[in-house]
Structure formats: C-alpha cells, structure tokens
C-alpha cells in the first residue's frame, strides 16, 4: 500500500514537471516574425495600434504585438524582462531611465541602423538630443513630447469680468507676479463671495482658488514651477543641455521664483501643499479651482467635462518670453532582440509623419513631428478643441528638452522629499543649496 502511494507521489511530481516544460515551449513556427512593443499608456497603445495594419501590409511576414502595463509596474516588469531575456523588442521609455539602461548595455545604440537605413532624424522637431547617451550615440527615436499648459474655466473667467485673452496672454515676473498675479487674485473667491483682489478677502476660507497648487516634489517641476523659472533663463541642466553635473537649484532666481509660488498658497490664492489630492480635471470640474496648470496630456480629458467649458492657454510669459521643459518619450530597442531588422522597421515606421498623424489624431499624445502635430490640431479643431498653443510652443521655440541625466531615479528619490519639505514649510530657502550639493554627488560621483 505504501509502495502505491510512493509511486503515485513520484507520478504526480513527474506530471507536474511535464506540465512546466509544456508551458515554456514555444508555439508553432510558420515563418512570421512577431515584433513586441510595449508602452505604459493604454491610450497610446490603442492609438499606435492604428499604425499596425499599414505596417503589416508593407512588411509581409512581420506581425506587431502591442502590450501596455500600468506605469507603476512598467519599469519593474521591463527590468525583469532584461534579466530574463524576455524584454520586448522595442519599447517606449522615459528620459530619466536612458542613463541606467544605456550604461548597463540593455538598449541598443542605433547609429549604425540609422546610417544603414538612411533614416532621417531631422523629421523630428523635438526630442532627438534627449536620447543621446554620453558616448554620443543615438539610443532613442522620439515618439511624443509633453509640456505644461494652463486650463481655465471659461464661465468663471467671464464671471470675474475677464476675457480669454487675459488668460492666454498672462505675463509674470518674480517681483510682483505680473498680470498672472492679478488674474489669479481676481479668480479667487472666498466663502462670502469676496474676490482675492477685493478688500475683506478671507484667505482662510476660500471657496474657489484662482489656480491649483503650483507646488510638487517633482525634481524638474514640469507642470509646476518650471514654466515660471524657465522664463528667467534658468535651465534644469544649467549650462549643459545634456548630462549635467549638477542641477542649479541654488540659483538666486530659482529661490526667488519658488518663494513667490509658495507665497501664493499663504495668500489663499492656491490650495496649500498636499491639500488637494484629486486630479486636475476633478479640481476644475468640481469648481474648487478656476484654472489649472497641468500637463499637455490632460488636454483631451480636461476639456470633456460635462457642463464645464474649459479653455486652453499657454504658460505665462516671463521676462525672457515663454519657456518650459518638455519631456520626450522615445522608442528604445532591446539588445536581446532576435529580430533587429524587423524591430527597426517598426520603430522607424512609428517615427514617420504618416503614423504620427494617424496615431496622434485623437490628441492622446503630442507628436514630436510638427507636421503631424499640425494635423492633430486641425483634427481636434474640427471637433471644437483648440490646441493651437501646443503648435506655437513647439514651433516658436518655447520649450527646451529635458536633459538626460545619470542616475535619474536616484535624483528623483533624493530631491522629491526636499521639495516636499520646502513646500510644506518645514524647510526654507537654505534647502536649495543642499539640493544642488546632493545632485552634484549623484550626477558626477
């Protein structure tokens, strides 16, 4: 009897092992090559899926498989894929991770492929420089770019006696805040209906804030302080357009700008740091703010709120005109890909005016090719959405590319708590010098 049990046990183990082997076996091989491509944005996945039929028609025998994973898991999954050799052939990547992936030889330098195929990078109007590693080689082919914009509740603007032009032409300076300061104060209303620029305004009991909180822990302040301080000539990489050795948070103009922005909350014109936790669309939709400075990626959702007409304005015009940082996501190719040529074909197909125009039509992202962006703007204009400020930003030189940095994630993790400490009032101006010292240690150890 015992013997029978033992045999059964051995048999069970054997069956389990056989099952495992079966799982890891590959499917049938009918000669087609599948190119796997990953993104973290499900809307981008759907948009780029529209480029696939054209690509597959033009490249018989090649299939494209698009997958998307939530951004919180995306990079962990990617890393696991690098280790196991199962990473996708090509994938969307974010600038701060270029350094880590290129340094460890996980993504392919593309110069040779570019030369061989005669692919012309000049088709892009933004983002190419952000994807050059310290070895001078190109590691990424730009996909989309993102910056900041100001969204305003048109009804509230009218109620305040302002016009949309007052919003789209706001000026700003760190001394008196320019017309931006006047507009924000005008749009702020306290619980008894007194506006922020009227006597008797109660900053402790605000019903509607002029604008959302211009404070965050974000190390590049993309949608918060960056569009302000950049108009003074300040740049994230200082003198360096790429691979900076420090981030000049200790610049006196930087401190002055941040002090002005933090002061807005003390004056009751914006919510305090950490007070609002909801998305910008929810803030403006609920009427708790009259304007939102948010990402360009918000444009297609924030303008769809029922019964709340939302207009789009560019960021503020400062002493040196408008300027903001732009993040350019790009396609990277995994070194472990078995199908370099097919993958390269797909990557360059995505980087064409045609694909960018098709995929970008829904404005879920802003194409890095001005011609395709123009087409996005026209498509959206036909549906009543005016995105022309984004064309103006791209073509008018109102954005500078985010510099790639070494140890990007360490910068983020180190700087975020310090910004949070500054905006919550735990720390003051002296924190900026400390931040710069820390970035020196991390960027140029």
């Amino acid at each position, binding site marked *: 009897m*015992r*013997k029978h*049990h*033992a045999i059964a*046990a*051995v048999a069970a*183990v054997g069956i389990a092992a056989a099952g495992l082997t079966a799982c890891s076996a590959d499917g049938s091989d009918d000669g087609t090559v599948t190119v796997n491509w990953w993104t973290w944005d499900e809307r981008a996945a759907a948009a780029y899926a529209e480029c696939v039929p054209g690509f597959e028609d033009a490249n018989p025998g090649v299939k494209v498989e698009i997958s998307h994973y939530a951004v919180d898991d995306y990079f*962990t999954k990617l*890393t696991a894929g*690098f*280790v196991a050799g199962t990473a996708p052939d090509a994938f969307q990547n974010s600038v701060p991770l270029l350094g*880590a992936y290129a340094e*460890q*030889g*996980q993504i392919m330098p593309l110069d040779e492929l570019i030369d061989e195929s005669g692919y012309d990078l000049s088709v892009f109007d933004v983002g190419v420089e952000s994807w050059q590693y310290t070895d001078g080689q190109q590691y990424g082919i730009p996909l989309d770019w993102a910056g900041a914009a100001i969204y305003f509740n048109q009804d509230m603007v009218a109620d305040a006696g302002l016009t949309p032009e007052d919003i789209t032409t706001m000026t700003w300076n760190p001394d008196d805040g320019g017309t931006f300061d006047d507009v924000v104060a005008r749009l702020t209303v306290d619980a008894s209906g007194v506006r922020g620029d009227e006597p008797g305004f109660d900053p402790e009991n605000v019903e509607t804030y002029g604008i959302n909180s211009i404070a965050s*822990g974000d190390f590049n302040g993309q949608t918060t302080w960056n569009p302000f301080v950049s108009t003074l000539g300040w740049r994230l990489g200082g003198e360096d357009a790429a691979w900076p050795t420090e981030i000049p948070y200790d610049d006196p103009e930087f401190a002055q700008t941040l002090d002005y922005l933090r002061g807005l909350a003390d004056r009751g014109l914006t919510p305090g*740091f*950490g*007070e*609002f*936790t*909801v998305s910008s669309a929810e803030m403006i939709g609920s009427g*708790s703010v009259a304007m939102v400075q948010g990402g360009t990626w918000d444009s297609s959702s924030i303008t769809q709120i029922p019964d709340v007409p939302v207009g789009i304005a560019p960021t503020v015009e400062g002493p040196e005109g408008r300027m903001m940082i732009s993040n350019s996501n790009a396609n990277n190719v995994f070194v472990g890909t078995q199908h370099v040529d097919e993958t390269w074909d797909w990557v360059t197909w995505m980087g064409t005016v045609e694909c960018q125009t098709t995929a970008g039509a829904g404005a879920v992202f802003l194409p890095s090719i001005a011609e395709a962006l123009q087409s996005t703007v026209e498509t959206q204009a036909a549906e009543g959405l005016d995105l022309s400020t984004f064309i103006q930003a791209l073509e008018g030189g109102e954005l500078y590319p985010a510099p790639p940095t070494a*140890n990007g*994630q*360490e910068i*983020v*993790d180190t700087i*975020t*708590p*310090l910004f*949070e*400490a500054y905006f*919550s009032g*735990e*720390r003051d101006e002296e924190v900026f010098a400390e931040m710069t010292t820390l970035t020196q240690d991390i960027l140029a150890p």
Partner: protein
Amino acid sequence: MSLSTAGAAPKRPPATGPKRPPRRPAANSPAHRGDGWLAWILIAPAMIGFLVFAVYPTLRGVYLSFTEFRVLTPPTWIGLENFREMFADSVFWSSLGVTVYFVVIAVSLTMIVSIATAAVLHRITESTVIRGLIILPFLISTVVAATVWSWMLDTQLGIVNVVVQAFGGDGVQFLTSREWAIPSVAFIHVWKNMGYTAIIIFAGLQTIPPQVYEAGRIDGAGESKMFFRLTLPLLRPILALVLVLNVIGAFQMFDIVSVTTKGGPANASNVLQMYIYSKAFGQFDFGYASAMSLSLFAILIIITFLQMRLLRANESETD
C-alpha cells in the same frame, strides 16, 4: 499510519542495565523497511519550497549585501562598502526612526485594543457571528483596505474630514502632513490587524481554566481585579507570542505606506521597507538594498530574542 507507534517497538533495556550494543532499528525491524525514502518524498514538497523560496533567497541576499549589484550586470564584491555607506546615510537613519515610531504606535495600540476586544468577546458574548465579525478586516486585502482608507481620510473628499468639519474642526491632512502621516498609517494597520491578534488572544483566554475565576470570585475579586491579577499573568505566553509577531510585522510595514503615502511627505512616512524598496526596484541598487535588509533582519533577531527572554515566553503559570 504505523509510523507513530514505530518508536515503541524495540524493547527498552532498564536504564541501569549494561551498555547495549548500537541498535539499527530501521534496518532490523520489518516495520521500518523502506520508510526513509518515503519520508523524504513526503517532506520534499515543503522542503523544496523552503529551500527555494526561503533559504536560497536569504543566503543570496546576504551575499548581495557585500556586492555592488545593479541587476542587469553581474554583482561585484565590494566587502563592507554598503554598510559603510549605510552608516553615513541620513535617510537610512531617519527611515529607521520613522519605522520605530510606527512600531511603537502600531504595536501598543494593537495590543491594547486586541486585549480589550478579546476580553470583551470572552466575558460578554457567546455569539460566533460577533466573534467572526472581529476578524473581518484581517480578511480584506491590505491594498484594498489601504486604498479605501486613503479615500476616507482624504482632505477634500474623505468622509472622516466631513465628520471632523461637522464638529467644527478644520480639515486634517491625515496622509499628506508630517504630523499625521505615521499615526494615520498606524491606525489603518491597527484596524486591519487587530482582529487577528484579538482572535489569538481570545483562543488563549479559552485555555484558562474557569476554576481559576471561580476561585477568584470566591475570594471576592471583581472583574477588573481578576483581569489584571489572573487573566493577564496567565495569558503571558500568548501575549508574548502575539507581541513578537506584531513587532516583526510592524517592522516590515510596507504595503499600506506604499498605497497611501509612498513615504511622503518629505520622507515623513518613509519606513525602512519603503526605502529598501525604492533603492532596489526604483534605483536598481540591489546591493545596498540587500545590506539594509540584512540590517533589518539583524535588528529583528535581536529584538525578538530580547522579547522572548524578557517575557519568559516559554514558561506558563498554568503548567
């Protein structure tokens, strides 16, 4: 089966008798023939799991803590460099401080609430439904519980702040201010784990013979006096176990923080596990993260050892 009686089979010689020859019962007794390999097969699933998922990762973690390891390239041995870095890392020390702060609040609250709940369950209700309800929060996935609580504690939309404001208070930034972040996380943790601890203590209460209480009552002791003079001392081994488990669990706090505050604001709730996670999976600095994990391991061993000794956890008054 027959395995349990096998030990009694050979005749035991008298203790004072002459030295018996070395015996090999497994070889001699027909009842034992072939048992060894069957035992190994039966143990194998648990054993393999233990070796693969516990022993090997632990040993590898120990090894990695002496290396520079960024996952994508092989580890390189750097000796004690990680530990040197750790001692100089102010974020590590502040994380440790935050963790201890959390442990103190969470464990003391859990113990007080659990003991009170268990005593109430034991002395007042016989209803299994009510007893079962107590453990409900423990059955909910931590991520779900933390997400729901983060909504309820939200400054703008949270029901808790609606209540606070109804009583004339100002909106409290439960999860976004330094003062409240750790107490709020500890509160969620206590809410989640109190039931489980209470049930263990409740089981312990049931092992106390009722005669003890009868005797107490005859001697004229009231409920509270019996609780402090009889219940608590007799529960000591169970309380020690529960305390040790709770301290270990609280030191390993990660999921609630990850869902509600991500360690913020300004590192105010950056517990050690959160810091280890962001070093490892955010910055790919697995060597340094392993070194910190090893330190946490050492801290837990020392604390557990001290607790066991101080509480004399392996002795009981009822024996």
